[in-house]
């Protein structure tokens, strides 16, 4: 069983957004992707719109686009992923976070219950 913590907001495209602007992919998404081997992160300072392609997570088999769950400016990226991309698999809500956004407008996001219902 994959987990969906309450207190986060979720995009239909499987990104989570924390109140402080931290973004990652969900446990469900990492489980679907399988072994993550490479993560391409955006540049700090980039201004993005909700729904824009902003990062790429590559598993052994395939490359998957990551979309911005909110509009805003990238304030930080998770440099640990360059050496240990498998953190996305092992700790998708903690050490495997992708980047932080200074959010201006949120996209169309769900709470944990709605996200779980959508992916059952």
């Amino acid at each position: 069983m994959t987990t969906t913590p309450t207190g986060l907001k979720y995009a239909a495209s499987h990104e989570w957004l924390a109140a402080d602007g931290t973004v990652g992919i969900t446990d469900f998404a990492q489980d679907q992707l399988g072994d993550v081997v490479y993560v391409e992160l955006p540049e700090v300072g980039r201004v993005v719109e909700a729904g824009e392609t902003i990062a790429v997570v590559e598993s052994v088999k395939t490359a998957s686009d990551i979309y911005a769950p909110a509009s805003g400016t990238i304030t930080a990226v998770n440099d640990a992923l360059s050496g240990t991309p498998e953190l996305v698999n092992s700790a998708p809500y903690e050490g495997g976070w992708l980047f932080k956004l200074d959010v201006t407008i949120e996209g169309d996001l769900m709470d944990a219950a709605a996200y779980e219902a959508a992916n059952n």
Partner: protein
Amino acid sequence: MNQSPTEPLKRTPLHAAHLRAGARMVPFGGWDMPVQYAGVKAEHDAVRNAAGVFDVSHMGEFRVQGSGALAFLQHVTTNDVSKLKPGRAQYNWLPGVSGGLVDDIYIYMVAPDEYLTVVNASNIAKDWAHLQRHAEGFDVTLTDESDRWGLLAVQGPQTESLLQPHTDTDLSSKKKNAFFPAKLFGFDVMLARTGYTGEDGFEVFVDASEAETVWDKLLAVGFTSAGLGARDTLRLEAGFPLYGHEFSDTIHPLSSTYSWVVKDKTHVGHEHIRAAPTQTLIGLKLDRVPVREGYPVKIGGEVVGHVTSGTSSPTFGHPIAMALVNAEHATLDIFDVEVRGKDHPATRVQLPFYKR
């Protein structure tokens, strides 16, 4: 793979077993197939270090019989089928009439005037039509036995020792490409010492109705179930070309440097195959970023080819790829591969990447 949305995916005799095992199923060549069970890397490692079992029942089997069987097979393939003896198997190509390959195939000699061939799942209908068309004038009977057989590939260094207690045949006496009837867990099967992973192993031809029982027994004696994901990373490390990627109707087959498959004889399309290919298949290794099929391969900003298969190698821990590049560039050592608009350096390495 193109799949018409109105056409239901076909199922192998092991479909229920895959679902029970919690496999992630994907459409592949018209079939609903397991891409992974526990995870690609774990399954890949199991085959490299121990033993794994793949369901390859989606592949097609055609029986070729009659006094003209050998002459017919010599006409439609590039390798020398006359070198086969009963109980031996041979890798071979089905050339097209105007260059390119209809498919790559395995031919198993059952007896004089009787052969079994195994073809790629996505090409079954195309191959069947091609062979029917070229059978005219030969005393030969073709039978499509694709639905009759379950086909399991058991692969990895522990394969022989895990199988031996459950069969009546001394497996150590059977060399690569041996093909023989045997009892396995009490069932009548055909075993072939062949495979597609770069490891030692066998392929098990079993009656479709008995395939699930044999599969379950293989798991019970220590084989790890492995899906299409691991099959692809294993074959790519072993440098094996795959139809639809390194081979096609339009790619010159000698680009793959498998020139030994073409023997000095007259066959369908022979005049095209003997023309020198303009592209060469090379191996590339990258530092970090995985490259995928279709990505441009460049020299000094100029596109000189494209990636045909790419992955992150579970064995080596870095990305590897095969690429078709212009023949005149094939001896260079450093290329760039364009990934999402950015060029990344790639070093040419000898194929295969992995050799047992």
